[in-house]
């Protein structure tokens, strides 16, 4: 089972503690969002997991292997995208990715196929043989995403993977992350976009002033902050009317409130965790009201975030 673990991980720059005694263990196939304000220590933590920064104390372990002392072994099954890397400008994506494929030991016969597959996943097929020096930031970011996926790693570490991308690019990267979840990968990603985290992540870890504030499932985090109350957003095929809201609140047990959000969506507030959330979904489906989407409300995570993270550096 893939795992990443921070054991009393700390990083100090002089007297400033960027990360302070962080202990966090994530294992299994899932997507975990890493949240926190600017300067909270998210990127520094990810850098310690990728040999870009040395820990002042503690250990960063990947699959039980210390990244600092056994880097090659620790990172052999890890794909990374930290900050916005630059690629040697005179190389083409095919060449730059071939370099990574060779370094990561992708079998020779599979390299070209893997490169074309990864480039196609980030929709850069047309640019595969053009020099990177002429690319925009977003295009380079897509190639870097492709580089992270190239060796089919079991663990993926992303630092704000949609940063610098246009809305379509952001959506495509989110789709890639969702598809990786289906492939049973462990994804650990930092992001400032709470809606993005709500959309793709199963769990969230929040960090503030270098310290872990909370690590739990998305629904438990939002439930804890709202005194056990959770919010889901339901999308319908047809417009929502007030009568339907009353009917739902009356018919389905456990719902505290059902309220219309906009034309075809409404929100349900309920008390409980994922079990209750699942039962409500089953009840709604039985009502045959034309559900097209059902997900944790991003604003619920925002409320939790604002409640837990009280200040921004």
């Amino acid at each position, binding site marked *: 089972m893939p795992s990443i673990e921070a054991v009393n991980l700390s990083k100090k720059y002089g007297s400033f503690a960027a990360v302070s005694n962080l202990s966090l263990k994530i294992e299994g196939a899932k997507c975990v969002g890493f949240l926190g304000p600017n300067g909270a220590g998210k990127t520094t933590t990810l850098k310690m997991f990728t040999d870009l*920064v*040395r820990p002042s104390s503690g250990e960063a372990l990947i699959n039980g292997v210390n990244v600092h002392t056994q880097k*090659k072994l620790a*990172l*052999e099954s890890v794909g990374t995208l930290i900050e916005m890397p630059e690629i*040697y*400008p005179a190389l083409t994506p095919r*060449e730059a990715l071939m370099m990574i494929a060779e370094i990561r030991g992708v079998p020779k016969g599979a390299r070209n196929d893997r490169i074309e597959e990864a480039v196609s996943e980030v929709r850069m097929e047309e640019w595969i043989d053009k020099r990177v020096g002429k690319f925009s930031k977003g295009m380079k970011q897509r190639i870097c995403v492709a580089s992270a996926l190239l060796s*089919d790693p079991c663990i993926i570490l992303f630092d704000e993977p949609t940063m610098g991308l246009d809305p379509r690019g952001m959506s495509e990267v989110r789709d890639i992350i969702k598809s990786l979840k289906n492939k049973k990968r462990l994804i650990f990603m930092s992001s400032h976009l709470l809606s993005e985290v709500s959309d793709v992540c199963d769990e969230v870890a929040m960090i503030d002033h270098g310290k872990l504030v909370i690590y739990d499932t998305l629904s438990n985090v939002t439930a804890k902050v709202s005194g056990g109350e959770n919010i889901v957003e339901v999308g319908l095929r047809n417009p929502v009317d007030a009568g339907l809201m009353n009917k739902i609140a009356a018919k389905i047990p456990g719902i505290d409130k059902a309220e219309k959000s906009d034309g075809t969506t409404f929100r349900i507030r309920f008390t409980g965790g994922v079990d209750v959330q699942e039962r409500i979904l089953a009840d709604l489906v039985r009502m045959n009201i034309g559900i097209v989407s059902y997900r944790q409300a991003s604003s619920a995570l925002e409320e939790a975030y604002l409640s837990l993270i009280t200040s921004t550096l």
Partner: protein
Amino acid sequence: MTETENSYGNKVPSSLAQVGITMKYTLLDYVRSRRFFILLTIAVLISAILTVVVGYYRPAVFLTSPLSFYSGWWGNIAIYVIVLSGVFFGGDAISGEFQNKTGYFGIPNPIRRSSIYIGKWLSALIASTVILGVFAAITVGNGLYYFPSVPSEFGLSLLFAWFYLVAVLGFTFFFSSLFKSSSMSILVTLILFLFAFNIIQLFVANFAQTEPWFLLTYGAQIIGNILTVPYPPPSSVTSFGPGGNGPTFTTFNATVPEGLAIIGLYFIITTFLGLVLFERKEFT
């Protein structure tokens, strides 16, 4: 140095093989980028100017003997071609990884930093050797026009020049590891090689009457001195003024073993320090 296979069928190559991979792609980047052709143009341009000047003015200092030709042409200019190569290919080799953020692409992979460092160093050495080789070929071409054979001392000088290139690259990579700014590492290296070392050598020899054995440029004198017969004495004093009673000017000359030792030590020490710095440097 062994390769490891993970559960996904990828076999991470040995560190030695990864040195070769880094070297291959860095070299490709050098050859594709303008810097290689700019330096090649500079080397060809210098050669062209010398060809015209020597061909037109026929200076006696160049054309007295084969050795004087190679001493005047190669012995005086090769060190500048080497320093420029070091600066062009080594100046930002490591600092650029930080400043341009290319390090974020390569380092978070299952590869030792030392493999990246050595791979980049080797590619710089190959690219610089090509430039030096082109300059040497043009030198020999001109030499053969005026004299029927190439003196054996030129072969030794060429070898010493290549050793010096190795040390210069060790030195430039060290400075490149020291600074995070590419322009700073390039500027400092250029100032040291073109001005500072020569000024220090002048002052140490004349005011402290001490042999400047601690300077790389002093060791590099063997490149030109080997083309002088007889080989210059270890030290000589020239007096100026009426009756030789004026100020004196002391010249020290590194012997061949001394020069090779200085060049070798500079290479070993600066390469080791550069590697240690790169291993410890953080991408903050």
